[in-house]
């Protein structure tokens, strides 16, 4: 080989020094494998066991709460004549919203060629899948007679055949959520194959070889396979981009196509999507701040990654804020008596029964993220963690406000007296999904590489700190000299 040719290859990878490095420290390919795979080869720490057992405990409580509901019906949840959708659908929308960040990071940021996604995409996608799993439980068990759940599936049946209503947003939801789950799972797992092969090939124990051998599908790293893998990732990203936008749009149709004051709003689709991205990134922050610390991955999920995600949080939080104010303005401007009553009496009136939840939502989602206009705050781990929890509390209340304040006072004032509050079984179901989510996440963090190893290797020589440092001199060179050098190397 010739030295100039190597120089040429290094030169075409040049990235500006003004961009922060994405991988910190003096790394090479083997070091990356070591850093990311070692935590899953070591025995789990005491902290892991504590967290895992708490999650399993919550999951068991959730299963018991669901058992109570299945046996005695949705009356167990304090749902009543006007509040037919309470905590359950609130939780459903909340979890689905959280499930949006993963695909956004892995698909949309892939299409936009955002290098920083490589540090966080694997964990965010896993989070997406677990969140959608949790979300799916709520509408299924809200059916009441859950053993009839298969009625939503359109198949030639002996009941007519009576088909499901393809014009109903609730059926669109069935298709949207199941498609989203399937595609996210395929995207995530196809990306995992090469990394599982990495774990397999360095495994020293027999059971690890066996397990990762089965899980990695016999991946070998052949160039042809990589070529197809790249094509697959790109097309899946292209498919997931409109998909992720469609899913929360369709969830918003559940409300927007109805004629309930407070739901019957054309602004819902973009407003829901922005809110979903907002809460999803907040959940990614909560999880990754802990994960990077516990697994010692601060050099791959850098403060820079956290900074970038906080920028997205302040952007989407502000979009959500504009949506809230637009809604309020239209309720006044539209001069529809029912609409303005829902907004100005059931929500914005702080002395109304649920007025407090409206202001909690406004405070958490619109005001508090504005702190991220300051760089110092965006790069502060404690503030970020605290804010990520606040945002998710706020986003839960957003869904609660939308659902409950719109239906607790219906068109018949005699049914207004009922104040809806959840029972222990309804809360237990919610806690149970936390158990499910964190049980899955703890297992994921223990057995799977939480960072996409191959993708980090791919960006190392462009965005790694040590490689960037070596490129510094390129900036002082003139373009002509660079061109001449590249030409010389090429011939």
């Amino acid at each position, binding site marked *: *080989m010739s030295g100039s*040719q*190597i120089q040429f*290859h290094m030169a075409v990878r040049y990235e500006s020094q003004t961009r922060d490095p994405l991988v910190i420290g003096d790394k090479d*390919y*083997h070091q990356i*494998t070591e850093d990311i795979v070692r935590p899953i080869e070591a025995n789990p720490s005491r902290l892991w066991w504590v967290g895992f057992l708490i999650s399993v405990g919550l999951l068991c409580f959730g299963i018991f709460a669901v058992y109570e509901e299945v046996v005695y019906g949705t009356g167990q949840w304090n749902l009543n004549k006007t509040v037919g959708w309470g905590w359950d659908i609130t939780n459903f929308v909340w979890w689905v919203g959280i499930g949006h960040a993963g695909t956004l990071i892995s698909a949309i940021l892939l299409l936009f060629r955002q290098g920083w996604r490589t540090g966080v995409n694997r964990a965010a996608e896993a989070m997406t899948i677990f969140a959608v799993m949790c979300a799916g439980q709520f509408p299924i068990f809200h059916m009441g007679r859950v053993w009839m759940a298969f009625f939503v599936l*359109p198949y030639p049946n002996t009941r007519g*055949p*009576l*088909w499901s*209503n*393809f*014009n109903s947003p609730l059926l*669109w939801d069935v*298709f*949207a959520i199941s*498609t989203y789950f*399937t*595609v996210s799972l*395929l*995207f995530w797992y*196809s990306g995992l194959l*090469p990394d599982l092969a*990495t774990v*397999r*090939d*360095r495994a*020293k124990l027999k*059971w690890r*070889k*066996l397990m*990762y*051998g089965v*899980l990695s*599908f*016999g*991946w*070998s*790293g*052949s*160039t*042809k396979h*990589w*070529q*197809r*893998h790249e*094509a*697959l990732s790109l*097309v*899946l990203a292209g*498919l*997931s981009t409109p*998909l992720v936008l*469609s899913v929360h749009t*369709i969830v918003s149709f559940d409300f927007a196509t109805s004629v309930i004051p407070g739901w019957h709003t054309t602004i819902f689709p973009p407003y829901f999507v922005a809110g979903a991205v907002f809460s999803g990134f907040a959940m990614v922050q909560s999880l990754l701040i802990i994960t990077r610390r516990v697994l010692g991955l601060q050099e791959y999920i850098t403060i820079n990654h956290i900074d970038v995600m906080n920028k997205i949080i302040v952007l989407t939080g502000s979009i959500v804020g504009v949506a809230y104010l637009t809604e309020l303005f239209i309720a006044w401007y539209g001069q529809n008596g029912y609409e303005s009553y829902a907004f100005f009496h059931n929500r914005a009136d702080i002395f109304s029964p649920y007025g407090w939840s409206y202001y909690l939502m406004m405070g958490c989602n619109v005001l508090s993220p504005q702190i991220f206009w300051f760089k110092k705050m965006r790069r502060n781990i404690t503030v970020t963690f605290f804010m990520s929890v606040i945002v998710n509390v706020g986003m839960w209340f957003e869904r609660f406000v939308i659902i409950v304040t719109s239906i607790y006072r219906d068109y018949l004032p005699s049914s207004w007296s009922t104040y809806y509050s959840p029972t222990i079984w309804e809360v237990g179901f919610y806690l149970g999904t936390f158990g499910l989510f964190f049980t899955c996440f703890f297992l994921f963090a223990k057995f799977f590489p939480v960072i996409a190893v*191959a993708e980090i*290797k*791919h960006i190392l*020589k462009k965005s790694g700190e040590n490689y960037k440092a070596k490129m510094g001199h390129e900036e002082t060179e003139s373009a002509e000299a660079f061109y001449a050098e590249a030409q010389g190397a090429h011939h």
Partner: protein
Amino acid sequence: MGVKRFAVGCFDNEDVLFPAVKKVRKAGYKIHDVYTPMPIHGLDAAMGLRDTSLHTAGFIYGISGTTTALTCISWVFTIDWPLNIGGKPHFALPAWIPITFELTVLFSAVGMVLTFCYLCQLAPFVKKHHFHPRATDDLFVMVVELTPKSNESEVIGFLQNAGAIETKIEEAETGWWLGRYDKDKRPFESPNVISVQ
């Protein structure tokens, strides 16, 4: 698929690998494959591989999803059981857009992943020969196919000259078979290394 002999050259730098691939091809040797720990853009072109048609397959799966959704829903709602929903039209195309879109994406994604697994022959319990355990860690492993007429030491020498840090001759079956990786030899041990530069 019979057992063949291969010359294996391991490179630790893709910037060395690229010129080496060109050199080896120019010298008339047949590159069986290059195994890399991550995707190397342009390597497929350098090796003379044709572009994949997986995108086209994805498009075909996608439009078959669109067609399935539209034909099924319109048949159900206009012919099989025209249900009166609030007096609205039976053929309610705008209301079918969401499901049609979802099925397009679903068919395309599932079809592409299955096609990908089929083309690459990937599945649980599939086992393939590994020329070097570090090919999924930090080495770029170029495998050159040998014929009975090949001068093995010449090929090895050529690879070393091109920048390979580790070379060896290996006999291998290159297809796949059902098997498990726990029967493999211990990792990071390659007893038949000929030379380390």
